[in-house]
């Protein structure tokens, strides 16, 4: 986060510098081949009412349903814009309150009173002491949304946005809907979460469109930052501890604080259903705590309805790409030679392309819950005692998945994601012409599956590839002889093994981040393609295929978002996609393997190969864990397991058994561990408040075997194979 606070410093100090940069960047853009043509042709005009006589011209300001909201800021005064009169809609039952009044209302609420009394009873503490604690909790938590600061914040935001991005696109049509919604019902904003910039962008968009600025549930890590913490708090961020277990008082204050905003409709409430930033750019399985707290007022009939707005924010280039790569590997990011400020400045000098913000269809919790929830069950106890029925909890989970899936559906996929996907299957580089062909092919497939691809029609595919590689020049390059390949990081970080494996892996992982954005589009068809592609028989029964799909879904459901209970429909849909557009042939209830194994199934399978490989490594590692003294496997902390599995991966990579350095990702290891736990292949055990894990060898061997049928697995090093348990060798290397 220091990057952002530093960013602020820079903006403050270097205001005059900015304009020249804009100019610079623009010339850069224009120099891409497509633009050149456009400019050349705009000279002569057949008719006077046509300003730009170019049939291939596509407005970049307004494209499809998107409108760039930054463009006009480049021509007018930011300060005038920030200080302008804003006609902000308000919820029809809202009673205006100041942030201080909100805090006061929270402390005086029945819910907090009830918790305070319970704590006094249990702990014997005095009322003043407990109330003092409640006050300190609410002080720590509360936002201090103020118009004055918002305007200052807006100036800061617009400068940052203009600096970082070429265009910030918003589907403007949704805005008028949002405007009406805000008047009618309390609104929850649920953006996807792939960057810290998400909430800055959200606030910016709301400020731009004269909508009330949201209050945002933020994690505590921001709070510590001196200036930035203050700024965010005064711009609507409220801070929530990541975990507060069974701290009753904290629960009460937190719940009341969130709910009072919803009941009175003070501001739209924004939070991330994923809980935290998705470092992998794939979306994380939803969390339910915040969602439950926010929707309880509807189930308790304190509000007529609540509207949930899934919002998708897609970045051409993610600000934190490098940070994420190193985080995923679990190694410290290499120190740059210069100071943080310098780093921030260099970020400002970089080009992060476009951002697409798509505000999805609002979900009315009332309509969503018709027939599945009976709110009457809350009639016989006070509403301030937290309680949700099983049906309500189930509904909240389903909604959380739905929201996440809607976010995914509405993502704008950048051409770079497709380039990344192709590059990762050609780690040694690929000729530009072939890359272009592959990307175009992949684009068609993604479109067929319903993805929105941000693919400018007025530019040649070649120009697009050029442009995108240029934007990501820190990751990829085009060599003089027309080969596109990954750039290796020149900051040679040498780890204790005496090589720069982790640095190389980080470079590769950065590419993975972008491919990952595309994976959600393909994951279901791929899970059908994988068993087909790896099948050694002539035909594969649909029923068998289905059960393999189910296994894959169980394995991958920490990585990708699947609606619980919808596996069968997903499978049917995916299979029909494959048969209709990808040449998969089904006869008499079986897939004809030979005819069906083709470019489609192969490409789709290969996209997901690294995951299965990584999971296989985890399995092998777990199988190698030595038994403890009493014949029971040794228990280990999940963290330790992941770390040690990573060591095994790195050995396999060094020995050239595995190409994909992606398997070094600790995130992948954690996910695999969780999936294996859900499959019963790993058990949990609580000791002294900590959770330990140990393998269930029978089930684990089965899963390992299944995995090795889906992909080509590397031979384990000679020694280990002989030992059969591999323990000796692996452990020796740790």
């Amino acid at each position, binding site marked *: 986060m220091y990057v952002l606070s530093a960013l602020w410093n820079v903006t403050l100090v270097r205001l005059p510098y900015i304009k020249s940069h804009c100019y610079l960047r623009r010339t850069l853009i224009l120099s891409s081949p497509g633009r050149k043509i456009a400019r050349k042709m705009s000279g002569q005009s057949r008719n006077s009412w046509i300003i730009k006589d170019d049939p291939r011209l596509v407005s970049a300001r307004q494209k499809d349903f998107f409108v760039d909201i930054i463009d006009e800021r480049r021509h007018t005064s930011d300060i005038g814009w920030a200080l302008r009169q804003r006609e902000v809609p308000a919820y029809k*039952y809202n009673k205006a309150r100041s942030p201080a009044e909100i805090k006061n209302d929270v402390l005086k609420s029945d819910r907090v009173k009830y918790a305070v009394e319970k704590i006094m009873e249990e702990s014997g503490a005095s009322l003043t002491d407990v109330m003092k604690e409640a006050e300190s909790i609410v002080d720590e938590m509360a936002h201090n949304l103020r118009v004055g600061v918002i305007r200052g914040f807006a100036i800061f935001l617009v400068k940052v946005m203009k600096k970082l991005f070429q265009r910030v696109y918003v589907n403007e049509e949704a805005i008028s809907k949002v405007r009406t919604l805000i008047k009618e019902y309390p609104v929850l904003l649920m953006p996807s979460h792939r960057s810290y910039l998400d909430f800055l962008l959200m606030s910016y968009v709301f400020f731009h469109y004269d909508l009330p600025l949201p209050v945002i549930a933020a994690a505590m890590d921001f709070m510590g930052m001196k200036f930035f913490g203050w700024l965010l708090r005064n711009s609507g961020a409220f801070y929530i501890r990541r975990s507060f277990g069974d701290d009753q008082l904290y629960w009460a204050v937190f719940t009341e604080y969130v709910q009072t905003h919803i009941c009175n409709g003070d501001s739209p409430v924004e939070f991330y259903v994923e809980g935290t930033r998705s470092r992998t750019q794939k979306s994380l399985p939803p969390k339910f705590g915040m969602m439950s707290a926010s929707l309880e007022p509807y189930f308790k*009939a304190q*509000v*007529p309805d609540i509207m949930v707005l899934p919002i998708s924010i897609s970045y051409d280039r993610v600000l934190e790409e490098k940070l994420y790569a190193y985080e995923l590997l679990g190694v410290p990011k290499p120190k740059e030679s210069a100071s943080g400020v310098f780093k921030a400045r260099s970020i400002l000098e970089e080009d992060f392309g476009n951002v697409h913000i798509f505000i999805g269809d609002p979900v009315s919790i009332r309509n969503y819950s018709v027939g599945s929830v*009976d*709110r*009457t069950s*809350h*009639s016989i106890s006070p*509403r301030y005692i937290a309680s949700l029925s099983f049906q309500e909890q189930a509904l909240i989970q389903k909604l959380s998945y739905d929201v996440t899936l809607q976010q995914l559906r509405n993502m704008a996929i950048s051409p770079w994601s497709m380039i990344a996907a192709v590059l990762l299957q050609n780690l040694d580089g690929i000729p530009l012409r072939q890359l272009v062909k592959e990307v175009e092919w992949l684009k068609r497939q993604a479109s067929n599956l319903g993805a929105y691809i941000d693919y400018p029609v007025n530019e040649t595919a070649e120009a697009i590839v050029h442009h995108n590689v240029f934007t990501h020049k820190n990751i990829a390059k085009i060599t003089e002889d027309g080969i596109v390949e990954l750039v290796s990081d020149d900051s040679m970080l040498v780890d204790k093994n005496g090589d720069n494996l982790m640095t190389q892996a980080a470079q590769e992982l950065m590419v993975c981040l972008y491919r990952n954005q595309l994976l959600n589009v393909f994951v279901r068809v791929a899970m059908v393609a994988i068993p087909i592609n790896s099948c050694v028989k002539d035909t594969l029964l649909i029923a068998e295929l289905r059960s393999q799909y189910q296994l894959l879904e169980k394995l991958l459901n920490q990585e990708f978002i699947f609606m619980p209970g919808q596996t069968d429909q997903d499978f049917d849909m995916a299979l029909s996609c494959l048969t209709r557009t990808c040449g998969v042939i089904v006869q008499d209830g079986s897939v004809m393997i030979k005819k069906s194994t083709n470019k489609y199934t192969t490409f789709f399978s290969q996209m997901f190969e690294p995951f299965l490989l990584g999971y296989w490594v985890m399995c092998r590692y777990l199988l190698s864990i030595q038994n403890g003294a009493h014949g029971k496997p040794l228990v280990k902390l999940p963290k330790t397991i992941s770390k040690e599995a990573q060591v095994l991966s790195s050995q396999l990579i060094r020995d050239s058994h595995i190409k994909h350095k992606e398997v070094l990702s600790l995130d992948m290891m954690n996910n695999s561990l969780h999936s294996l736990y859900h499959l019963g292949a790993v058990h949990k055990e609580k000791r002294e408040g900590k959770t330990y894990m140990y393998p269930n060898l029978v089930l684990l061997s089965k899963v390992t075997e299944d995995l090795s049928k889906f992909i080509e697995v590397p031979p384990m090093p000679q020694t280990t194979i002989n030992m059969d348990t591999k323990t000796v060798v692996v452990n020796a290397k740790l």
Partner: protein
Amino acid sequence: MSQRHSIEGKDCATDVDPPSIPKRRQELLKWNGWGYKDSKFIVNKDNHVEFTGERYQLSGHTMTLLRDWMIKTVGISLDHKTPPQPELTAKDMPTPVRNEEFLADIRRTNISHSDDCQDRLFRAHGHTLSEMFILREGRFSRMPDLVVWPASHNEVVKLVELANKHNVCIIPFGGGTSVSEALLCPEQETRMIISLDTSQMNKILWVDEKNLVAHIECGIIGQDLERLLAKKGYCTGHEPDSMEFSSLGGWVATRASGMKKNIYGNIEDLVVHVKCVTPRGTMEKSCQVPRLSSGPDIHHFILGSEGTLGVVTEVTLKIRPVPECKKYGSIVFPDFEHGVACLREIAKQKCAPASIRLMDNEQFQFGHALKPESKSTFTNFMDGLKKFYITRIKGFDLNTMAVATLLFEGAKKDVDAQEKRVYEIAAQFGGLAGGAENGERGYMLTFAIAYIRDLGFEYYIVAESFETSVPWDRCLDLCTNVKDRLHRECKERGIQFPPYITCRVTQTYDAGACVYFYFGFNYRGIQNPVQLYDDIESCARDEILANGGSISHHHGVGKLRKRWLKKTVGEVGVGAMRAIKEYLDPQNIFGSGNLMVGDPEESAHNSSNSNVSLPSKL
């Protein structure tokens, strides 16, 4: 088919003070609307709304603001009318089912009875929207086959015996003001249905001044009861809004509530003794005591039984001396929320006046529109001043303001003290005393609204009221959410005009309140307004339950609300009710099909819809 028997009963009409409603109701009452024939809202030659007759305070007055209010709020147009069908005659009604043995037996008794089609028609319905629409535009496919007018408890006993013997279905009929479809005949009923009209059992049998109780026959209607008692210096103080027409037996059978329950109590508090004739025999207690510890109170089997277990024939009620002083009042609040908070506080301090009702802004404006044209410029001037004071000096917004109407009763000094206390509490919640006149007009609105609905019917308006009870902490949310739900349903169902939706907190209790809703809309351009209305009201009831409200505070369940009964009292609760029914009435002689009887899914609500064959109007 019209063999009318002894219409001139033995002993009614001979009394010095005859009952207000005659045995042939059609002589005095509208056949297809609310109340007296002479009293109705009409649009007069000046295109203004006028109330006819001489019966009420409003009678003969022109309400100059009302027409514009109706045009503005519900979008009526004076050019678009929906006149009712001409009066139904014998050919429009189903042929009566005749149980010859029963008829032969009844002829041998001296009990007055009739199968005249008008007599039957008048007892075939209550006053829900769908019933009124059947009268205005449709036909009944099932009706009582015979009307009987027993004149005493013993005649009722005889009748029930005969019905039991010949397996004839009985539906008791009191004042006919039901709003739960309780009087509708079940369409599937193949037995002969007799309507047991209690109106001839209308005497106060004795008054016991030592214990302050009176023993009264069940058929007496509210206004007669109070008038007769007043002659002796007493009252019961039970004043439901329907008291002009509803009967004592009906109050008991539906668990009625009176406007002044804060002083006198609801019907269950007033009843000291009940005699109820069931097919198993007469159920009553052998003592007339203020309280009894002897197992579950058998009175409570009967209270609210909605004619499913038997007929109430005689009731001993508490009476009180007529109060010395009666005074109206009103409080103006900046908004409804402040008003609810104030009512809650008044209930907490247990100092509620005889009646206290809080009207929301929409109802306040309605009340204002009902103001008769004032004759003097001075009144106009004063009204202007008042408005100026409230809006300009006190800063109230005419579009959010809410008004509480008050009725104080008691000894002069008690009333004064209570008044002072109530206004003091009100001041803490931003309330201002708004004068007696506003208060009185508020109560008048309740009486007038039933008549106004008939005017609405003439102009494409369907409207109805429904009510509930709710704990205090959920009261405000319930009002907000139910209104919101209604607005939303109207919008989603394509109603072209803004609906009229309003509520009032109409009773206060220690632990909660009674909330009363009016809901109506202009159905021009819509196919089946009654069905649509019912669907939307059902949504509102679902919403009420979701908001912690009840199935009903005093209207009862009848057939209209059966589907929510199990949700309200639980499976075991319904089972227990059915067990009582099974014991008292195994043959289902009292076969109205109300409350717990029969399958709620195929309640008469559905059958009543098929009962109605409405032409679609555009």
